[in-house]
């Protein structure tokens, strides 16, 4: 092996420029793949962080994923049973015995729960009627389990709900639709016909238009009175200290209580799927670059094999095995790939530094924005391994050809 390496290095060092060019090919592939992976990973992590920071990690709703099984279904579980004209019985909506459940949830480590009654209401002000979603909340729990407090743009935060008899915090868009300002008193009407005077005690702005233009907050008790559903809760929003465990936890909660429990991953399935596709596109692009680089290596090793036909012949007649010859040229490909990968690591690292320094000055954005980069050792290891492997594979055909050369054919022709 040492001897083969010795000869392989001799060949490569004798044609430094060619070797360097093909190494650069590999380096480009590896370098760009590291930079691209870093960009992708960075933006993806940033996105997920935003989701994870701003959305509940699990939402338990007073819904069930499947209609309850009917007795006939239970009896003939494997039968081809079709039930028609079934009249579902009127069930009282809402999560049953919510406070027991909240207590159970809060006993779990790292879990925060915000119990909510979400209902549709009409808000009237100055002759305008606007429909809105009213979230009845428990201020202290809401503060711990969600980030809404940070989005309240008026003084006092969530606690301002306590400052009026029927306090209401509106999304800024919703307030604009109504033409209402803080301290205005609106008329709220629920689907069950209860009418209540409510005072605007605050405004919030999350930046998500659909939320800002339709959502409002009130104390849970008031919302229950307005909806005429005393003591009812129909939504539990859960924040976890380990958001990645949300899928398992949601499954567990759903199997325990039956209520539909949706993890943030499930709610954002489309987005996470898009990330997967984006990553696939990236890997395809990077593979393409490396394939091109492999052609370069194939080219060098083929050239060396062609130029070194005489050397191969004398080495074979001297007592080198065909496998030795193959080894020499495989090693040459591997070395170009390996050194190219090392160069590529440097290039990738440098590219990341440069990309990290770029700033976009977009006026609409309050902060100065740049690329969000995130490199992991996996990017480096993976790209390096792929480069070295593809380089070795690229040299396989010429190496095999070299090992099959018959020394006599060459020696006869040489004079």
């Amino acid at each position, binding site marked *: 092996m040492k001897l083969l390496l010795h000869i392989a290095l*001799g060949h490569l060092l004798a044609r430094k420029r060619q070797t360097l060019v093909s190494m650069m090919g590999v380096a480009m592939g590896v370098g760009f793949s590291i930079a691209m992976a870093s960009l992708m990973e960075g933006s993806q992590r940033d996105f997920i962080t935003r989701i994870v920071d701003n959305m509940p990690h699990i939402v338990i709703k007073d819904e069930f994923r499947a209609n309850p099984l009917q007795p006939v279904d239970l009896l003939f579980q494997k039968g081809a049973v079709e039930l028609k004209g079934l009249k579902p019985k009127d069930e009282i909506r809402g999560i049953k015995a919510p406070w027991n459940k909240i207590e159970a949830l809060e006993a779990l480590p790292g879990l925060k729960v915000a119990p909510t009654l979400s209902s549709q209401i009409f808000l009237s002000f100055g002759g305008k009627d606007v429909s809105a979603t009213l979230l009845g909340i428990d201020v202290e729990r809401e503060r711990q389990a969600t980030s809404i407090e940070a989005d309240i743009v008026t003084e006092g935060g969530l606690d301002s709900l306590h400052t009026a008899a029927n306090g209401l915090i509106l999304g800024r868009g919703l307030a604009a639709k109504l033409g209402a300002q803080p301290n205005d008193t609106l008329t709220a009407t629920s689907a069950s016909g209860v009418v209540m005077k409510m005072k605007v005690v605050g405004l919030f702005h999350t930046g998500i238009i659909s939320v800002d233009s339709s959502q409002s907050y009130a104390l849970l008790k008031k919302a229950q009175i307005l909806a005429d559903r005393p003591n009812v809760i129909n939504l539990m929003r859960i924040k976890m200290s380990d958001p990645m465990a949300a899928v398992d936890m949601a499954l567990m909660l759903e199997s325990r209580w039956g209520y539909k429990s949706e993890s943030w991953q499930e709610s954002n399935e489309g987005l996470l799927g898009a990330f997967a596709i984006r990553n696939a596109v990236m890997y395809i692009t990077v593979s393409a670059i490396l394939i091109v680089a492999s052609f370069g290596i194939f080219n060098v090793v083929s050239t060396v094999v062609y130029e070194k036909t005489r050397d191969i012949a*004398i080495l074979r007649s001297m007592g080198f095995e065909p496998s030795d010859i193959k080894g020499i040229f495989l090693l040459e490909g591997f070395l170009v790939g390996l050194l190219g990968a090392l160069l590529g690591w440097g290039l990738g690292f440098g590219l990341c530094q440069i990309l990290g320094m770029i700033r976009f000055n977009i006026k609409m954005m309050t902060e100065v924005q740049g690329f969000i980069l995130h490199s992991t050792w996996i990017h480096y290891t993976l790209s390096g391994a792929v480069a070295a492997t593809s380089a070795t594979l690229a040299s396989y055909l010429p190496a095999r050809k070299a090992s099959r050369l018959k020394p006599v054919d060459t020696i006869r022709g040489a004079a």
Partner: protein
Amino acid sequence: MNLETPAIEARSLSRILPGLVPAVLVDGVDFRAEKGELVAITGASGSGKSSLLYLLGLLDEPTSGSVIIAGQDCAPLSDAERTYLRLERLGFVFQFHFLLAEFTVLGNVCMPMKKLGRLSDAEQDAHGRALLKELGLQGFEKKLPEQLSGGERQRVAIARALANAPGILLADEPTGNLDSKNSRIVFDIFRNLARDHGKTIITVTHDHDLAKTCDRQVHLADGKVVA
């Protein structure tokens, strides 16, 4: 009749290239060379000298007949075993020097020793230098082949062929590219190797004067030994 085991022997050796019109390269050759013998193979161009030498050197496989080296019949050997015999017992010199351009003179000479792997690096180095000195190439160790004259290159090639101390040296027109002075030097070396070191040397040559200086001449015509 010599009763000792010959260093190398060919028994009714034939090499026929298959094809529409099969080409007979070597045709039923019987041949033997003793230890310490310097044999010249002569013959017109195309008479099969090189072909015979390749067969004797296990570089080519005969269509029929066999080559026996130091009493061992090589016909039943595997490719790997033949390769090992070449490494251990045979040395080759060709008309072209076949030196590896990327390696120094000493590096070239040490190549077969490295492959055989019996000597330490230091021993290889010392042995290589000794061989070069013996062939009058002292001081050339660190030079590259391209910095040498044709005669010097050919002597380096001889040194390399001798690196693993083979009993048999096979040379195919080793002086084909050399002037008469250098040719004489090469043959002096051969004679010396045969006489003083007991090497068996079989060399193909076109040069009748040089052939005459050998212990014996074998003349080929149309792939057959004629004298």
